[in-house]
């Protein structure tokens, strides 16, 4: 009679249905191989520090001092910490009620939320209310909290781009909702066509789904495209007309590798559009310390800002946040530092700028190296990585390869990626983990491996790919576009 309460069969179906490929089959296989001694290059997740990117010095100095405040009493502290780091540590400690070890306000330290609001105001040119900003243990937690408020049952649909970052599909699954896909246009640089949106919504509604919200990831993940202002206006107009909450995942806003389409926040565009729409569209914007040039994934720091959400709903969201008591305080300080970094004249300013620029300029170069590298491979077509941290090449798998995959019981792009892993140690995520059009295959890799190692990695990939294409090649039957 024992253990019947937790057999696999009786587990929550929503859990069983949810998938998260980023740490799924490929990653697990790569980890196994690593244990066996094979050199693995993990490009499966946007995890810059794991691939050699160094943390920025200034924030680490500040947080270390906050971690061990007794250091601040030591007269020699000025010998190994710059004065501005010491001052900033004292500033953040004064914002807490008991240092890093005390629960903060469930929404995050008011002082840090104020700094975030000021950052948003400087960035967009419109005021921001700290009361409508909640800090969270990473942006992912914020996304989950918000979707949890929106999704009531299976009839609630969330518009999600395809390809998408599978946090969205996994969370919608876990919450028992329905994912309503809208396809990005690969031939148009992963552009967003409002007609596709309309079609997706109409189809969902005809199936009895109430479409509640729309997710945009800007810059995109895995696709990297940066939305134009015109595009954002269309989207906001669409959300207004269809009465959808817009969820703006903007975690890659610092990662822009072209100059034609700089980052512009959804909030700014909304406010620019003026009344009545600026008072009607409900918008929730997400940001993080994990990406950008900070790459502080392990801290778990993020926030969301709510626009046009009614006060009582805000209270309910606060209530749910309060059950988890508070986001971790160290990460809140990282967030404060990110939104108010060293200024010209500060002792640490030059070093900070040097480090930041170094990272961003290198990312820009790596985006180009990777895109060009993929495009030089047989049967591989790759859109340029305009932003974010990923490359998402299309692999035109020959029909023989697709057959072999079927025989091996694998989805075709999983088959390809596993072979790539075994041959080269490069661990990627198959495109099926993100969603793609039927019969079109991709893989996602990051642009994060060290610049010095990139040429070798791209050579290794090219060698594998071109051999694979020869092995399974025929001159007809490429996978359709």
């Amino acid at each position, binding site marked *: 009679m024992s253990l019947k*309460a*937790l057999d696999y069969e009786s587990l929550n179906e929503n*859990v069983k249905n949810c998938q998260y490929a980023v740490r799924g089959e490929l990653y697990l296989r790569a980890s196994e191989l690593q244990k066996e001694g094979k050199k693995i290059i993990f490009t499966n997740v946007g995890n810059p520090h794991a691939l050699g990117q160094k943390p920025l010095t200034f924030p680490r100095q500040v947080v270390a001092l906050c971690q061990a405040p007794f250091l601040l009493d030591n007269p020699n502290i000025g010998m190994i910490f710059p004065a501005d780091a010491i001052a900033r540590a004292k500033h953040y400690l004064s914002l807490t009620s008991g240092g890093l*070890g*005390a629960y903060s306000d469930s929404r995050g330290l008011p002082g840090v939320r104020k700094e975030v609001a000021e950052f948003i105001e400087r960035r967009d040119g419109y005021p921001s209310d700290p009361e409508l900003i909640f800090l969270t*243990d990473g942006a992912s937690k914020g996304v989950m909290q918000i979707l949890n408020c*929106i999704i009531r049952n299976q009839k609630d649909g969330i518009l999600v781009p395809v390809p998408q970052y599978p946090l969205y599909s996994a969370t919608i699954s*876990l919450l028992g909702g329905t994912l309503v896909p809208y396809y990005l246009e690969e031939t148009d640089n992963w552009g967003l066509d409002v007609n596709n949106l309309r079609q997706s919504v109409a189809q969902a509604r005809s199936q009895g789904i109430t479409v*509640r919200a729309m997710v945009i990831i800007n810059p995109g993940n895995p696709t990297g495209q940066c939305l134009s202002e015109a595009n954002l206006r269309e989207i906001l107009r669409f959300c207004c007309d269809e009465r959808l909450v817009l969820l703006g995942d903007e975690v890659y806003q610092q990662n822009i590798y072209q100059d034609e389409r700089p980052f512009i926040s959804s909030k700014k565009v909304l406010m620019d559009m003026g009344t009545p729409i600026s008072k009607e569209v409900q918008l929730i914007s997400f940001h993080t310390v994990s990406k950008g040039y900070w790459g502080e994934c392990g*801290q778990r720091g993020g926030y969301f800002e709510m626009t046009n959400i009614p006060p009582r709903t805000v209270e309910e969201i606060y209530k749910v946040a309060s059950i988890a008591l508070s986001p971790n305080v160290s990460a809140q300080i990282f967030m404060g530092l990110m939104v108010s970094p060293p200024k010209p004249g500060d002792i640490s300013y030059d070093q900070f700028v040097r480090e930041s620029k170094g990272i961003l300029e290198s990312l820009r170069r790596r985006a180009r190296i990777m895109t060009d590298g993929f495009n030089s491979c047989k049967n591989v077509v790759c859109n340029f990585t305009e932003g974010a941290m990923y490359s998402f090449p299309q692999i035109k798998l020959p029909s023989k390869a697709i057959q072999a995959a079927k025989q091996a019981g694998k989805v075709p792009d999983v088959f390809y990626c596993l072979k790539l892993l075994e041959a080269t140690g490069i661990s990627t995520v198959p495109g099926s983990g993100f969603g793609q059009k039927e019969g079109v295959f991709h893989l996602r890799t990051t642009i994060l491996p060290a610049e010095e190692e990139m040429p070798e990695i791209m050579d290794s990939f090219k060698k594998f790919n071109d051999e694979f294409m020869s092995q399974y090649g025929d001159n007809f039957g490429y996978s359709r576009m």
Partner: protein
Amino acid sequence: MRRFLISQAKTLADQIRRQHHTSRRFLSLLPSLSPPVPSPLLSLSRFLSSASNMSASDSTSSLPVTLDSINPKVLKCEYAVRGEIVNIAQKLQEDLKTNKDAYPFDEIIYCNIGNPQSLGQLPIKFFREVLALCDHTSLLDESETHALFSTDSIDRAWKILDQIPGRATGAYSHSQGIKGLRDTIAAGIEARDGYPADPNDIFLTDGASPAVHMMMQLLLSSEKDGILCPIPQYPLYSASIALHGGSLVPYYLDEATGWGLEISDLKKQLEEARSKGITVRALVVINPGNPTGQVLAEENQRDIVKFCKQEGLVLLADEVYQENVYVPDKKFHSFKKVARSLEYGEKDIALVSFQSVSKGYYGECGKRGGYMEVTGFTSDVREQIYKVASVNLCSNISGQVLASLVMSPPKPGDDSYDSYMVERDGILSSMAKRAKTLEDALNNLEGVTCNRAEGAMYLFPRVNLPRKAIEAAEAAKTAPDAFYCKRLLNATGIVVVPGSGFGQVPGTWHFRCTILPQEDKIPAIVNRLTDFHKSFMDEFRD
């Protein structure tokens, strides 16, 4: 203008919500299988329906994410620890800054939440040394560091960094947490229990609370799935069950016998739930208890383990207060140790043990560190747990490091050992002392009885409210214990949580007060509390 409107709407919304919530909370914590409902409820339920008509401020109903269209499970869940009374206290605190003379006290003392470092408790120095070195690893290359940090903290930091690929503390780790840290924790569990622990059974989480949520998510598919919870309980459980759409099946702890747990009562509640078509999936035990503070006797624990095995229940053992035991006649025994001592292995019982860095003598709430040790699950279930953990990628690294330090603190012979022990013993003995002082003070109040705090961080006195007070509460449209607590707050600045936030036998009233204000504040707290209670009773005595 927008800000003004929002604050106006907020005030009105606050008022409505307060009334709405009070009556709803009063109802919601009445378990469906409890003793008969007393009559005051009927009038409150009438009020409940009229309150929901008063939503004039929410005229934004044309917008998609309004209260009408929000997930009803979110609306249903409650969490009193940071609820209404705390909001009032925060407003008072703001006002005190400019209006000192308007109040009979000059500070708010937050006794509502187990947040030691917000009330002056200092962190353990060794732990913070290691964390600082891990945060800013270039310190380890500086010669001055040896003058600023203890030798063993430097050694430990090196050891930990060597367990982190690339020494990158800013990278996402394995979704269960860094392997080397799990090894350390497993070794610590083994040293504590005398039975082996497997690092692969450990999931490091951002505090124990997310781990509890994960388990609820796995176990609960619908309202037909039930979780046995102690009443009174820490409302994370009731809230989490509500959020995941399950049913809370209560079992009452017996106040008269020091909050004892009777297996016969467990069995009765289980059977009643089953007869109503509920599949009871798990049993939650909080040991040491929150809010009740009792430490279970080992024999009691054996009975509980046997019960779970017999009935096929997952045992969810919340052991976050394992280092907080204040009485010489009780000792903490982990449920894992108890199970293994009965020779129950992986095939006999499914057990999930929760631990946190927030409590104990370390009190590192803001770091969000914790873990669950998951045993007795088949591998296909384990994979699902891993999958859910992976969606959030990993818990914060600093919290992971701290969890490993908590489970393997300095040992005799280590440089920091002596000072560490002084800090640790100082905090724990002070907690024991404060627990006793406050317990005695509460027992001296007219109509108040308070069980001793054997462990944890709280006192949960029972207040025999006179009839007149209950009537006044009704007239104020507030639950009687909330009425008392608000009066207490307004008279003394002391913030406690009404017992209805935790659940109690209907018709009894309690509040939860922490033992955490620093020792020098305790006499003033006792005096103010005593004076307040006397005048309250003078006003309402029958």
